[in-house]
Every structure is written in structure tokens, then in C-alpha cells.
């Protein structure tokens, strides 16, 4: 089971290499083979030189060195070829490994863009990040170092093995017996080592997680005098990590000496057996000497391979996680209704190429007819049921109608399901039962991208990007002119604070807008939505962290922005939603009251209670 998974991962990795780099790969393989053979040959060169060229000259009064010089020159050429091949394969492997990594990272990221929100909601960001950093990095080491080294070592070993067989069968068998012993030992040590490496990775995860959490909450730690406790807990985890790390490294460290010294043992055995054989005249002295050289030439690459095994195992585990990301099921989109530019001709909606400011839904029907519906921004819920988990309903039987240009607000206690409703309109999550219609079209039929393009969002989490203020606002409309950006900023009243910044609109903000106050961040995200200029807006507690005075300013801007649009508002402050056309009071996932402010106040029900602070719906 484990094995097949591993070989599958290897096969898949190989596919990346063979896909774009077949030609280069062949050159690499040939170069490695040549370079390894030159290495093997080079090791034997001296013996050959002594036996065939130096010994005959011994005792010669007038030795002729020309033959010797020739062979050295020849060897020089061979060495040069070897060096060249080494350079070629090193150089090409850079192309291949960096190219493959580039491709893999691109695939990961592009695939990730297509994953449903659920994927992100159910995983920690650290977990996703570590796939991009740690896992890709171990893969790089494997591709650029481990694999060429192992391959080269294998070529050397095969070459030496052939030479050994050609020299003497029995001695070869002795060597092979040693190899079996080595494999046995390295499997034992390697097994232990990788067991502790797995444990080490786990412990690293724990320590890193703890560090992350404590650093995030460091100010709370200080306020609660919790320093000593947090030190104590950290020390425990740190100690555990140290323990598993020591063991994992220890087994890895002693592998090499074990292999090398088993090799030495083999050397002695071969020497003794060979000596006996030569005394009995079965083997020539030269052959034994040669064979002993082979034994050494055989053990060295074996040691190298054993050194690489750990990093290969770790890299494969990383590759598995990478492929797991790439294999995640993407967001399904069975929509076929698209959003197009339109114009009105003879009272009819017609598709057009130009940007008219009028949009229409292009609706192809089964019978081949294509109809156009003008985008108006009417949203309708019909008996909607939803839960994040199949068996746990969050929303029950939600039915509502937001007509074009209406402001619909949701109020209710935290956890009543207000945010969830907005997650459904743009299909971050799909409903389990019921229907949501947009301009009378079931949103399941609308292409997700087009649906979302027609909806603007201002969320609780403002999510800004590293870059200038201008870039961040432009996120709402990538091809916006500077004028449009200023216009949007003015509309949302962000203009004033931006102008106070040292570099105005070109001020670079980092991370998640560190250095800006929560209110300023929200002003920016409102400006972003304003620039986007969608027919339908969703505002999720967009003003909760802006102080009342600023909020008043924002509110004015928002009112301008909301004009002519359908707006869904979620807010805790009832003052901001009083002018809504429709207010929905939610409780435990059900709409328990609806109407406008006057109606609901007159009703003297939950809303009235909430408004006057008389009752609690929590």
C-alpha cells in the first residue's frame, strides 16, 4: 500500500521531467554515465599505468617515455571528456530541476485559485504555506542533488560490478554478500532514522504551531502575566523536539561509518580469500590487487547512496503533499448564463462589444434560442436550507426578495446566520435545498465568475495586499484610471486620510495593511468596492470598527454608492440600517421578523426589543 503510493509519486514526478525536458534528460543521463565511467576508469588508470607502462621500463638504461607520455595524454583527454560531462549534466540539471519546480509551483498556485472557499476554511494557512516552502524546497534538493548523485553512484557500481565479475566470480560473491549485509544494516538504521524523522517533523509542527500562536498573542501574554506559563509549555515541546531530532540525526549520522566499515571488512575478507586462492595458483597476483581496488570503488558510491536516502524519503513525502493540493477537487461550475455588455435597440436588449455601462445576462436555451435579460440586481431566496456540514443546518427555510435598488439588512445575534447568507449569494458555498434567483435566473445556471463580477463585497476581514494604496483600490477595477481611483476614494471618504499619508496614493502598505488603523483599512476596502461599481453590493459589518464620526462620513459615501443598487447589509449598529427598505431579523438561522424600520417598530416584536434594548434574542 505504502510502496505503491510511493512509486506512484515517483512516476508522477518523472512525468514532469520527461514532459518538457526529454532531450535534455537524455543528454544528462548519457553525461552522467560517461562521467561515472571516467571516474571508474580513472581509479584503475594507475594500476594499468604501472603494470603496462612503468614496469617494462624498469631496469632499462635508456628508457623510452614516449609511449608512457602518449597514454597519459590519452588519459588527459578522457578526463577532460569526463569533466565536460560533469559540467554538462550539472548545468542541464539546473534547467530541469528549476524548470520542473517552476512548473509545479505554478500548477499549485493556479490550481489553488480554482479551489472552493471550503478548502481554505478547513485548513490553517500555515499548513498551505508550508507546502509552498518546505515541501517544494525538499523536492528541489532531491531533483538537483540526490537523484543525479544516486544515478551516478549506481552507474559506477554497475560498472565496477561488471569488472568484478569479469575478474573472479567467487570473490564477487563475497562482495555481494557484504552488500546484502550493508543493505540489511542500512535498512535497519534507515528505518529507525525515518521513524524518528517522522516524529521530528511532527514535533517541529507542534513547536512551530506553538510559536506562531504565542507570537500572535504575545500582547495578551503580557497583559495576563502569562510569560512563565508560556515559557514552561514551550520548554516542554522544545525538549521533545530536541529528543526526536537527536535520535533522527544520530541514526542518519552513523549510517555512513557503518557502510564504510562493512566495506573495509569486505576488503579484508577478499584479501584473505584472494591470498589463499593465489597461493594455490587459481588467481594471479595482479587480479587480486585489481579486485581489491574494485572493492573500494564499489563501497564509496554505496555510502553516497545511503547518505541520500533520507532526503529522498523526505522529498517524496513533500511531493505527496504537493500532489494532494494539485489533486484537490476544483470548484464546480455548471453555469452557462454569462454576463455581457449590452445596449438597448428598439426597446430590446442586444449584445455588444463596447462598454456601454449596461449589462445583460446571456441565456442560451436548450432549443438553441438565446435570450438576453438586462442586469438589474434583483435577488430572491426561495425556501433556502443550508449547513456547512451536511447534517448540521445553519439556515432554515429562508425566503426573501430584494428588488432592484433595494437595501436589505440583516440583524440578529452573533451566530444567527447573517454572514452565511452572504456566502450563498455569491456561491462561496452552495445551498442544499431551495433556490436563489438573480434577475429571475437560478444562480446555479450563472457562470460563477460572471455572478461574482456582478456582486461587490466589503468584508469583515479587509484583506489588503502589499503594494501602494492606489494598487489596492485598483483591485476593484484593474484598468481603472487614476481619476477613477481618486473618485472612488472620495466617494467612500478615504481620500482625506490617504492625502495625509507621507506619499499619498503611492504610499506602500505591507502585509495586511499594518500601520493603518482598522477603520482606515475598511475605508480602503470600501473604496475598492466603489471602484468595482457593481449592481449588487454586500456589506458585511463593513463599518463595525469605524468610529461613529468616521462612520457618519463613510455612511454618506455609502449612501451615494448604494443609490440605484441592490444592497445587502449586515451590521450590529441598528442606526446604519434604519433606512433599509427591508430588514430581516434572524434568529438561529430563521427569519423571525421582516419589514421596514417603521413596520418593525410598530410591531413591537423582537426588532423593537433589540432597538430599544429591552429584550435579548441571543
Amino acid at each position, binding site marked *: 500500500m505504502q510502496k505503491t503510493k510511493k512509486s506512484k509519486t515517483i512516476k508522477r514526478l518523472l512525468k514532469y521531467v520527461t514532459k518538457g525536458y526529454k532531450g535534455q534528460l537524455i543528454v544528462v543521463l548519457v553525461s552522467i554515465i560517461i562521467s561515472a565511467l571516467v571516474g571508474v576508469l580513472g581509479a584503475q*588508470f594507475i594500476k594499468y599505468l604501472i603494470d603496462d607502462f*612503468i614496469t617494462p*621500463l*624498469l631496469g632499462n638504461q635508456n*628508457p623510452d617515455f614516449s609511449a608512457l607520455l602518449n597514454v597519459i595524454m590519452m*588519459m*588527459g583527454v578522457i*578526463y*577532460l571528456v569526463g*569533466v565536460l560531462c*560533469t*559540467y554538462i549534466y*550539472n548545468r542541464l540539471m*539546473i534547467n530541469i530541476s*528549476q524548470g520542473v*519546480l517552476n512548473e509545479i509551483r505554478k500548477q499549485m498556485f493556479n490550481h*489553488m*485559485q480554482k479551489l472552493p*472557499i471550503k478548502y*481554505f476554511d478547513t485548513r490553517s494557512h500555515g499548513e498551505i*504555506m508550508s507546502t509552498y516552502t518546505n515541501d517544494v524546497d525538499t523536492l528541489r534538493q532531491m531533483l538537483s542533488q540526490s537523484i543525479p548523485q544516486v544515478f551516478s553512484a549506481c552507474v559506477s557500481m554497475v560498472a565496477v560490478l561488471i569488472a568484478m565479475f569479469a575478474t573472479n566470480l567467487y570473490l564477487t560473491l563475497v562482495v555481494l554478500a557484504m552488500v546484502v549485509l550493508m543493505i540489511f544494516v542500512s535498512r535497519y538504521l534507515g528505518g529507525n532514522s525515518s521513524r524518528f524523522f517522522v516524529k521530528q517533523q511532527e514535533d517541529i509542527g507542534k513547536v512551530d504551531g506553538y510559536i*506562531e*500562536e504565542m*507570537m*500572535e498573542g504575545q*500582547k495578551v501574554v503580557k497583559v*495576563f502575566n502569562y510569560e512563565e506559563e508560556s515559557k514552561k509549555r514551550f520548554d516542554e515541546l522544545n525538549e521533545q523536539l530536541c529528543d526526536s531530532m537527536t535520535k533522527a*540525526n544520530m541514526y542518519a*549520522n552513523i549510517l*555512513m*561509518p557503518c557502510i564504510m*566499515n562493512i566495506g*573495509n571488512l569486505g*576488503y579484508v575478507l577478499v584479501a*584473505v580469500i*584472494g*591470498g589463499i586462492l*593465489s*597461493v594455490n595458483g587459481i588467481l594471479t597476483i595482479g587480479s587480486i590487487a585489481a579486485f*581489491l581496488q574494485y572493492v*573500494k570503488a564499489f563501497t564509496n558510491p554505496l555510502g553516497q547512496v545511503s547518505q541520500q536516502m533520507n532526503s529522498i524519503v523526505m522529498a517524496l513525502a513533500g511531493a505527496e503533499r504537493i500532489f494532494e493540493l494539485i489533486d484537490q477537487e476544483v470548484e464546480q461550475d455548471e453555469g452557462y448564463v454569462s454576463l455581457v455588455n449590452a445596449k438597448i435597440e428598439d426597446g430590446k436588449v442586444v449584445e455588444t462589444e463596447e462598454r456601454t455601462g449596461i449589462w445583460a445576462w446571456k441565456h442560451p436555451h436548450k432549443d438553441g434560442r438565446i435570450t438576453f435579460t438586462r442586469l438589474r440586481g434583483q435577488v430572491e431566496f426561495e425556501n433556502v436550507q443550508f449547513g456547512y456540514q451536511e447534517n448540521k443546518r445553519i439556515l432554515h427555510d429562508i425566503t426573501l426578495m430584494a428588488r432592484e435598488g433595494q437595501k436589505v439588512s440583516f440583524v440578529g*445575534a*452573533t451566530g444567527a446566520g447573517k454572514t452565511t447568507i452572504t456566502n450563498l449569494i455569491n456561491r462561496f458555498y452552495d445551498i442544499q435545498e431551495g433556490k436563489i434567483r438573480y434577475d429571475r435566473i437560478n444562480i446555479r445556471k450563472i457562470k460563477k465568475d460572471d455572478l461574482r463580477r456582478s456582486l461587490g*463585497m466589503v*468584508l469583515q476581514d479587509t484583506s*489588503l495586499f502589499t503594494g501602494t494604496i492606489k494598487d489596492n483600490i485598483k*483591485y*476593484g477595477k484593474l484598468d481603472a484610471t487614476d481619476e477613477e481611483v481618486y473618485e472612488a476614494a472620495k466617494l467612500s471618504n478615504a481620500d482625506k486620510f490617504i492625502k495625509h499619508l507621507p506619499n499619498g496614493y503611492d504610499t506602500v502598505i505591507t*502585509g495586511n495593511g499594518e500601520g493603518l488603523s482598522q477603520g482606515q483599512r475598511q475605508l480602503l476596502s470600501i473604496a475598492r468596492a466603489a471602484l468595482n461599481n457593481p449592481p449588487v453590493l454586500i456589506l458585511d459589518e463593513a463599518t463595525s*470598527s*469605524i*468610529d*461613529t*464620526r*468616521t462612520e457618519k462620513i463613510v455612511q454618506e459615501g455609502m449612501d451615494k454608492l448604494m443609490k440605484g443598487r441592490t444592497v445587502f447589509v449586515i451590521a450590529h*449598529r441598528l442606526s446604519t440600517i*434604519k433606512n433599509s427598505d427591508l430588514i430581516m431579523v434572524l434568529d438561529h438561522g430563521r427569519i423571525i421578523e421582516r419589514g421596514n424600520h417603521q413596520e418593525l417598530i410598530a410591531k413591537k416584536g423582537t426588532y423593537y426589543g433589540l432597538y430599544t*434594548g*429591552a429584550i435579548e*434574542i441571543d
Partner: protein
Amino acid sequence: MFKKLSKYVKEYKKDAILTPIFVILEVVMEVVIPLLMARIIDVGIQNGDVKYIVEIGGLLIVCAILSLTFGMLSGRFAAKASAGYAKNLRKEMFHKIQDYSFENIDKFSTSSLVTRMTTDVTNVQMAFQMIIRILVRGPIMMIFALLMVLSISTKLSTIFFVAIPVLGVVLYYIAIKAHPNFERVFKKYDKLNRVVQENVSAIRVVKAFVREDHEEEKFKEVNDEVYRDFKKAEKIVAFNGPAMQITIYTCILLISWIGSQLIVGGTMQTGELSSIITYAWQILASLMMLSFVFVMVIMAQSSAERILEVIEEEPSLKNKENPVTKIKDGSIKFEDVSFVYSDEENKNKYSLQNINLDIKAGETVGIIGGTGSSKSTLVQLIPRLYDVTKGSVKVGGIDVRNYDIHALREEVAMVLQKNVLFSGTIAENLRWGDKSADQEDLEEACKLAQADGFIKEFPSKYETVLDQGGTNVSGGQKQRICIARAILKQPKILILDDSTSAVDTKTDALIRKAFREKIPNTTKIIIAQRVSSVEDADKIIVLNEGRINGIGTSEELLKTNNIYREVYESQMKGGDEEDAEN
């Protein structure tokens, strides 16, 4: 720099010293073993002397066992020393950070502290292991091998004395050349990570604006940059192998040529020639190791710098000598307080100016003011999270700088605006306030904070496990748990920094009512956006751009303070009208 860091080897000093000692012994064996091997061929095999082969073979096996033992020991000590060293570094940093003041924390971003404690420590640890194992092995092996060559032939050894420096210079040059390129690669890597991280945390915005393509383009750009720069850096390093090979092959050819003449001339044995070649390989191998270590150390250098920055950062707040440990009561006095943040951005800007305040023990004080009016800054001076720039803050009649910091904070509980819950059960989180609190205490505090009700609705009640950051409870619930946690401290002063913004008005009012009834002697300071949250306070402070704009009860301020009236009216006016209609 490495010297400074080396002091954290501490209790692993023994292992760190034993490692190179055993490495040296191992190297001695590695030098002796080829000698014995040569004897076996040159004497034993040549003469067909099986007895001799067995004798030397036996010796060789003894050496092999010794070599194995030394190797295993050095491996073991190295593992212990390096893992222990990493442990100490992490511990040192973590403990140091616990001693940081807010000012220190502000200086480093959270993510940078995390990287420093993880990736950077790993880099330094790897370099450390390299240093104690290979930095000794390389030169020792080279010296032994050179000595052997010298003892065989001084003439041939000159080849090495020329080749080694030449190769050394070449390798050094390659490493130096590659270093800035790798630096650049790491910077690009940071950028790539940042793009991914921002994408992941902003995924809702990305999808809402349908900017997947834009994000892909952004990623492609930085991904290609990484690809290009990495290739450039590696291309330089790719010369390492060939440079090495060229040198060794040249040496071998030269040795062969000169050596064979020496042999023919009768001044050298054939066996000696092959021995020299073996040593040539060893010398080259040791050089290779050194260049490898060199690169590793260079790479670890910037990591070491970043670690040192954390360790050497001086905590900006310290206890005075003989600090006061007893806080008399919860009265607070600000005497002409001004405050400037020390970070670059706000260096020349007064965040607070000439603040004078007198708050009696047990009073409830509301603070209201626009974004950037320094409300949080003001209250953070009370538990001495920052030190005032001018003037003085007194709690219980004594300057906060004269208190023992822990004692002070024990009595001043604060719910931060950016409050954090930790992974673990609700009960565990609550016990941050009071380690020894029993279930009854917890429930009582939670009832006060209006959290008991919803907690009991969870299937596992107080044992409900919270995710990191408390993401599995709603914002309002989180705030109430945080308030309960602060109440459990039974402080003399309780500060809520905009801590009920996500709680509905009714619950908010209930919390305040409970404060009034259950903890009347505690001084309560409430920062809020909602007027209703502070309306019934004994005293309301209106802050504007770091200055006090007005102090008084709601009624008084409505008459005298424009800002307050404006805020009040914008929040209350509509409601009054509606009420009038009914």
C-alpha cells in the same frame, strides 16, 4: 557573530567538543586503513604470504571496528550537540521575547519572529553541525594526507602545494560570486511566500472580485523571478564540480608522469605511487568538504544575524530596584502625560499630549473618540505596557514605574482590542486569568460577561475545544470569553478596549449592569464606539487627536462638548424620533 551565538551551546559543550575529537580519531583510522590495504597488496599478495595477509587483515579489522566506533560516537555526539544547540537557541529567543515590552514587540512583526525561530534556527543548526563535524575533518584529513605524501616524496608534494591554493582560490571565488545571487534568491522567495500568503488569507476578496487571473499573473511574475535568479545562482555553483575534477585529474596526470620517471630512476616504489594517488583523492575530498561548509556558513550568516537581533534586543521596560508590590486601590491619576511611539513612523508625532486625569477607585469611565485619537494608547499606559514620554501615571497614588511590573499587571486587567484566544478548551483559556480557578469561579465570571449562556449551549460546554485564534466561535462570543478571562483576575482596574463592538447592544448593557452590581469596587475603563456603551458611566472622556477634548457625564457633555453631541445625535437621534412616534 558566530562567537556570540556559540555561547548558547551551554550544556552541550561536552558533546560539541567530543564530536571533533572523535572525528579526528576517525580520520586517523581512515588514513591508516588505506596504508594497511596497500601493505596487503604490496607485501602480502605480491609474496603470496597468506599468514601476513591474515595478520594485517586482522589489524585492519581492528582498525575498522575502531573507525566504526569513533564514527558512531562522533555521529551521536554531533546529533546531540546540534539538536541541543538548536533547542537552546529557540529557548533563548522564546524566553527573551517573553521579556519583551509592547514596544519591542511592535518592532518585529509576528511573522518575522516566527521565521526567526523556525527557519533561521534550522539554518544555523545545520551550519553548526557542519562546523563541528566537517570543518575539523577537512583540514585534518588534508594535513594527514599531505604529511603522508611528504614522507613518500617531497618532489611530488610540491604539486599539491601549488594545486591546493589554486583550487582554494577558485572555490572561494565561486562561493563569493554565488553568495549575492543566493541572497537575491532568498529575497525573491520571501516575496513569493508573501504573494501566496496574502492570496490565501484574502481568498474571499480574490474570488469576490473574480481576480484569480490577476493573482495568477502576479504569482507567475514572482515565480519566474525565483526561477531566473535561482538558475543564475546555481549556474555559478555548477562550476564547483568541474573545477574540482580538473584539479584532481591534472594532479593525477602530473603525478603519474613525474612519478613514473622517479620509479624508473629508482627513487620510488610502484606501491608508493598508488598510495600518493589515493591521498590525492583524500586531499581533494577534504577541499570539497571545506567549500561545502563555506557555502553553508555563508548561507547561515544572515540567519545568525536575524537570531542575534532577537536575542540582543533589550527589553525596554524594567523593574526599578526595590519595586512596590502592593497596589493600594484602583484609583488612577494622569499628571501632564505626553507620549510618543518610538517606531520610525510615529517618531516625531505626539500620540498623547498633556493628559490630566483623576479617576477614583470604583468609578466607571468611558472613553470615546475618533480613529487615531489614541484611546488605546491612553489606557495602555495604565498597566505600563508602554512608558510615558513625559509626565506620570499613578495607580493607587504611586507612579506605575515604581511598581513591580507583574504585581501591577496582576491588578490591572485589560481586554485588548485585538484580543486573542488560544487553542485549547474554553476553560483553559479562561484560566489564563486565574490558574487556580475552579468550575464555579469560571461560571461566575462567565455569567458576569454574559458568556455562560452560550457556552452551556455548546455540546461540550466549558470543555469545548477552541481552534487557534478562536475561529470556531463568533466575534461577539469571543469578546465575551475574553472579558470573562479578564474578570477572573479579580483586578482592581478593568480596562475594556473596544471589547464589546461585536456584542449586541442588549448584551452589552447586561454586561455593564453586571459590572455595576457584581464588581462595584473595581475601577472600570471602557473604550467604545457606541455612545450607549458609555452613556451611563460616571465620567466620559472625549479624546481628539491625542488631547482631552472634554470630561464629564453624558448630560454635561451634551451641553458642553460638540464632538460628543455630534456622536450622540448621530447614534441616538433617529431612535428618539421613532420612540416619539410610538
